[in-house]
Structure formats: C-alpha cells, structure tokens
C-alpha cells in the first residue's frame, strides 16, 4: 500500500472502531479514540505509537479477518509507525530506514573497517602484533575511545533531538510545556513496568485457545532486552568510574562489578533477542505486523546481537592470542551499532514515551475541565534540554 492509502485505511478503521468502542478499557488507544470524532494525520500518528502491539484488540474484534470489514489495528498501526520513523527523520537518511537490514550490515562493515584501520595505525601496521596476548588499551588507547565515543554521542543526540522535535510537532503537541509534568512521570512508570506491553488490561483474562504461553510471555523478552541493554550501559559507566576515580585499569577480574554487570546484561539481551528473532517465524507475525516493521525489528536485533556476541567472545578470549582480533571486531560492531541507532527501531522508545506523556495530559486536561470548566489549564514548564 502507498503512503496515502495507509492513512486512508487507518482512517476507515478508526471511524469504525469509534462507532463500536467495544475495546474500551483494553489500552490507551481505545480511550484516546473516544476523545475524537475525526482522525487527521496527527491523530493517526499519535495513536499508532500509543499502540504497544499487544494484539488484544485484534483477538477480541468481531470484524477482524476473515470478516468483510477486515479490521486489523495492530497491522495498520505497525505500518503507520514505519512511515513515521522515516517521516520524522532527516530526508537525507530515509534510505537507511527503507532498507534496514542492508543498512545495518553496511554500517557494521563501516564500523569494523574503521576499527581495523585505526588498530593498524595504533599497532604500527605490524600484522604480527594482532595475534599476541595483549592489553585492550594497546589496541585502542583510552583517549581514542573517549574521543570516538564523544563524536558518536553528539551525532546520536543531535539526530534524536531533531527526530523527537519533528515527532512532537507531528503528533500535535504545540509546545512541550502544554503537557503536564505528572504525565511524564506516569509515562515513565509505564515504560519501566511495561504496563501496556503486557497485553493491556486483559492480560490475565481473555485469550482464545490459540494464545499459548509463549505469546503471553512475550513482554518478558522485551524486558530482558531493555534491561539487558541498561545493564550494559551501567557496566561501561562503572568501568569508567573504576579507571578515573579509583585508578584501576582493565582487564578487570570476572568477579568485578563492570564485568558482572556486562556479562549479566549481555546474556539477558542475547537470550531476549534470540527468542524475539525466533518468534518472527510465526504465522501471527505475517498477519499482524507490517512487513516493513518486521525487517526494521530484525535489523535492530542484528545490530544489538553483533556487539553483544562479540563482547562476550572478547571476555572469553581475553587471555588468548585471538584477543586483539576479536576486540577490534567488537569495537567495530559497537561503532556500527551507534551509527545505526538514530535510524533504527531504537526511536520507538522516545516516540512511545512522548505519546504516553501526551495521552496522560489529554486525560488530565479532560478531567480537569470536567471538574471545573472555567479554570485555565494548569501549565508546567518542562525544560528538557538546558
């Protein structure tokens, strides 16, 4: 389907859903729908990210295929989300989104090539020095890691800032200060606890006989990936603290905090990702998710899997002759991953968070108006970036 057709289909679906409203209470999408009588592009983009893809609405819908009305909210929202990723990105980089798997592989190759080039330079173009037991900072001195990390961090921050700003406008928030402060906190709570990912409110109630345990536990795998990634970031931070505050240099023993955090995070993320990638084989995925988003997810999974696997290999091989080679590849995959971040599925974290904040503000402002229709809406200034 083309861009316009997808929005037209979303509008058709939302008009029908708004006449039915049987899904009321399942998740925020079906509350937000009741605040609206017309569905403009802003509303559709907003609701698409409010959808956490739990699919409960699809299973309870009497109009889902093979019914002639052919309503498939998870699929259409997934298609809209894919459009949104590209729509709110710099025009120049849209191709990365459109060809996610090839893009992530190319970026990985660029990252690895870059790592090897720098390593060659650092090791004096001497191939023999690649295959001896070495120290990590012989291969890449700390200053290089810091400068490289800083450049990548600025690159990621600027791109994400641009995309978030575009997205905020796109879903109809005129100023961030129009939102309530507490709605940001509630949104954060939902992110932390995976509130809407866990099948919405019906989590322990309705399922038809097709809904087996694996799908019911799907949110657990997302928890593993998300918190695994957080642990990996935490490992990097503690390693930096070890070196700069305590003056302890790597390699750290296995039972040190950075290594334990890193290993736990790595294994959690690895398992979560492998299960998620495996689950894409199911026929449900074919029916309920847009093809484009599926490849986006796969590409993102690959781009995390590679640094996680090579990271774990680096740990295992750190006292062998292959240590340098594996470490260089690992650092390359990390560069590739960071390069890919702003044009990957990663953005859903920010977009979902913003839509949830808008959602809670919508609820608050309505309840506020209901209690006292004459009072002016309370405004709380939010300074996101100083």
């Amino acid at each position, binding site marked *: 389907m083309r861009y316009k057709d997808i929005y037209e289909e979303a509008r058709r679906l939302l008009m029908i859903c708004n006449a039915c409203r049987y899904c009321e209470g399942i998740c925020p999408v079906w509350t937000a729908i009741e605040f609206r009588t017309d569905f403009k592009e802003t509303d559709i983009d907003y609701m698409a990210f409010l959808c956490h893809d739990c699919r409960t609405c699809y299973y*309870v819908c009497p109009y889902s295929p093979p019914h002639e009305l052919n309503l498939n909210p998870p699929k259409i929202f997934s298609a809209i989300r894919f459009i949104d990723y590209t729509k709110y990105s710099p025009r120049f980089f849209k191709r990365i989104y459109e060809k996610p798997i090839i893009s992530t592989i190319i970026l990985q190759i660029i990252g690895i090539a870059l790592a090897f080039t720098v390593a060659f330079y650092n090791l004096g173009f001497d191939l023999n020095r690649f295959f001896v037991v070495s120290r990590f900072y012989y291969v890449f001195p700390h200053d290089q890691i810091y400068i490289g990390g800083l450049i990548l961090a600025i690159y990621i921050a600027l791109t994400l800032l641009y995309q978030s700003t575009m997205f905020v406008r796109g879903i109809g928030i005129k100023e961030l200060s129009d939102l309530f402060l507490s709605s940001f906190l509630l949104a954060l709570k939902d992110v932390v606890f995976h509130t809407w990912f866990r099948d919405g409110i019906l989590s322990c109630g*309705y399922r038809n006989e097709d809904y087996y345990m694996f799908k019911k536990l799907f949110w657990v795998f997302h928890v593993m990936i998300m918190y695994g990634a957080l642990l990996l970031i935490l490992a990097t931070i503690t390693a930096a603290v070890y070196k700069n505050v305590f003056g302890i240099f790597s390699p750290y023993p296995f039972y040190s905090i950075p290594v334990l955090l890193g290993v736990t995070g790595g294994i959690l993320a690895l398992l979560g990702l492998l299960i998620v990638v495996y689950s894409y084989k199911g026929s449900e995925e074919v029916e309920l998710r847009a093809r484009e988003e599926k490849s986006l997810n796969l590409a993102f999974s690959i781009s995390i899997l590679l640094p996680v696997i090579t990271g774990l290999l680096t740990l295992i091989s750190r006292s062998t002759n292959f240590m340098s080679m594996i470490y260089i590849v690992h650092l390359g995959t990390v560069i590739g991953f960071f390069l890919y971040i702003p044009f990957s599925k990663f953005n859903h974290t920010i977009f979902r968070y913003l839509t949830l904040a808008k959602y809670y503000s919508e609820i608050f402002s309505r309840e506020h108006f209901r209690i006292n229709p004459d009072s002016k809406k309370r405004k709380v200034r939010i300074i996101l970036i100083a």
Partner: protein
Amino acid sequence: MSTGQLFDVIVVGGGNAGLVSAISAIEHGARSLLLIERSSRELRGGNSRYTRDIRYAHEDVDVFTTGVYSRDEMLNDILRVTGGKTNIELAKLVVERSQELVLWMYKHGVPLVKAFRGTLHLSRTNAFFMGGGKALIDTYYKYLSARKEVKILYNTIVTDIIVDDKRVVGVKALKGSEEMMFKSKSVIIASGGFQANIERLRQIWGDKADKFVIRGSRFDDGMLLIRLIELGAMPVGDLKEGHMVAVDARAPKTDGGVISRVDAIPFGIVINKRYKRFYDEGEDEWPKRYAIWGKLVAEQPEAEAYVIFDSKIWGKFIPPAWPPYTANSLEELAIKLNLDPERLIQVVKEFNDHVQPCRVDYERLDGCSTKGLDPPKSNWASKIDTPPFYAYKVVPGITFTYYGVMIDRNARVMGKDGKPFENLFATGEIMMGNILGKGYLGGLGLTIGGVFGLIAGEKSVMPP
C-alpha cells in the same frame, strides 16, 4: 468421519446459548458431547460475537454495575416492554436465575468489566464484557476445546433431527458435501432465529425485505426452526416481531454488528418518505426503545426513514461508522438527501412550533415534550434550529427474530399436543418468543439464552 457415533449430548449452535449449554452439560456429568457450529472457526459464535453486555437482577450493589436492579424492577421492565406478551412463569425464571448466570460467567473466566477500573462504561442494569462478545465466546470455546469429552465440529450444518415419537435419537448433518449422522441421548438446539433467511423475510414483509440489513451472523437461516415445527414442535411468537433497530443505510448487508446503529433518534426527529413523523422519538429511555425502531421503519413506505437533528446534538451519542449528511441549511440538507426542500422545512417547522420551552437534559427522562403534536415527542424535545444540520438515512436492521419454539421450565421443546419432547431442548434466539412477545431490553437476549442454557445443559444430562 465416523457416522452413527453415540454422544451423551449434542449441542447445535455455537453461540452464547449453545456454549453455556455445553459447559453446563459437561459440568453436570455429560461424558461425551458434540458441539456443531455452522460457521468456520474464525467466524464462530453467531450473533453473540456482536454482543457486549448482559442484563441481570441484583438486589445488592456489586462490582459489575453502578447500583441495585431488583428482581421486581427487572420483571416489570420485561412486562412493560413486551406489553404483557410474555410467558410470565419463564420470565420470572430468567429474572430469578440471572444473577446466578452472571456469577457463573465470571467464574468461567468471562472478562466482566469491574467498577473500580477507572472511568469505563458501566450501567446499573447490565454487566459489560471487556472487549465485547468475541471475548465472551472465545472464553467458552477455550474452556470447551480443552475438555477431552468435547468434540467441536465447524462448518457443519445440522439438516435434520431424527425423532422417534417424542424422543430424539440423533441428528443428521452436512459438512461440505459429506453427509453425517450422529446419535445422542439428548439434543440441545441453540441455532438462532431465521433473521438471515431473506426468502422467509420476503414472505413476511414483501419486497421491503430487500431493504433489510442483517445485523448479525449471515448463517441464521432458521431452517432447523422450520424443521422442528414440521416435526410437531409448538410455535410461539409473531412472525413479524424481533429485535430490529434502525441502522445506517450504508451498513454492510450482513454481520455489521453494532457499528451501523443510529442512536441519534431520541435526540432528533424521524420522518418517513412521506415527510411524516410516525412515532414518539422520546417515548422512553433509549435502551428500552432502540430495538423497536427497526420494525417502525420497516412499516414505513419503502422501509426507509430519515433522522434529522442539529448541531446541539452532535457529540451526545456515539455516531455510526459513516459520517452523517451535513449541511448549513435544511434546504441544502434536503437536496443532499434527495428530498423535497419545502416539505422537509415544513415538517421541521411544524415540530419546532410545538416544542415547549424546557431545560433539556439528555442524561435522564426530562419530560421536555411537544404540545399538541401527533405523534408527540415526550422527552428531549428541543427545536431543530442550530446549523449545521445533520441527517442519517436509516433502514431496518434485523438482529434476531422472536418467532420460535415453545419450551417448558426445563427448556424442553413443547409439542403441539401440549406435551414436551423428552430429550429435546431449545435455548437462545430460537425460543426468544417465549419471553419476548415484542419489544426488547438491552442485554436481555444473552440472559435468556444463558439461563435456559444452564437449564438445558443440566436437564440434558439429568432428565427432569
């Protein structure tokens, strides 16, 4: 497929009534049960797919509703909407066991919406299922498909009941072109009304039947109902009566469910093709009146009508899936509807002239009525004078028919000789006419089907 297999119980029809019967039969000790569903697995559940809530009497405040709804009040409501055309003994039975049924549903995992879950839609008289009727029937199917004594056959039509005097021996069925025969100790029929049988509707309503929209399942052709009456079952109810609502003329021909219902009627006026109002739009609370408007529209010339209202009303009701006709003047609205502008303006003016000054409150019966107008509008009468003006073209949407087979307290099908069939039971729409001679109360269909489902299931295993 083996033929001639013997089951303890055969249930025909896999909607709410049939599923409750089946579960009830299993829990009362049926060791083998065959559930025959006419539709595919994906479209199963008959009209129950399109339901959302169930009415039940409760003497105390509970978590599923907002207040007390006593047995007396519920029985009085039934008497009022049916105008006394009801089997009072059976109606009382439904009222008495309605709360038991809802608790039974909750116990069996039906996701009933509870009051403490925030600002969700709740009512005083009805319990709602989170997600609607498909969640209801899927809960039951999930239960049944996990029981090894239950066999479920989809895409299978029961073509005949094999009767030996007043005893049922089994059923004949057809799956594709394969003919099958199953023997059983008792049979429960829950195969619905005949509302999807256009041929029959045409015999009753004439050419107007072509305008009818079948709101529910396309499979309810009533062939089994006709067969039962041929076999000597006592018919009950009027052929023309049923649950019929006014639906948007753009609705799909079958299986449109709730999305085509036009709920603007009590807030505006309804005129027919002759530019005449024909019924009191504000006669009573909408949940007690919405199900008569289909028949009212069906009785009009060409079985069509127009709901006219103004911008004061917009947002007061849930709109159907299609936008209303909208115009900044009545004249323009008439042109869009293909009506004569002068006569439309005339009928609106006549109505406006009879509206009394009153503070309209759409939340309750406000007594804001017209004076000296025939027919009157008894509540929510306010002038249609604030553009933009809106209109819906409506046609009859038939949900289910009331004409069916007579049953006794044990849900057994009654014969024309006044004696019941020993082991043949009926529940659901096929026996709705026992209680609903006319009129309707929102959510009562599921209550009737469910209560007699519990009874039929029990009695099919332990004969009365």
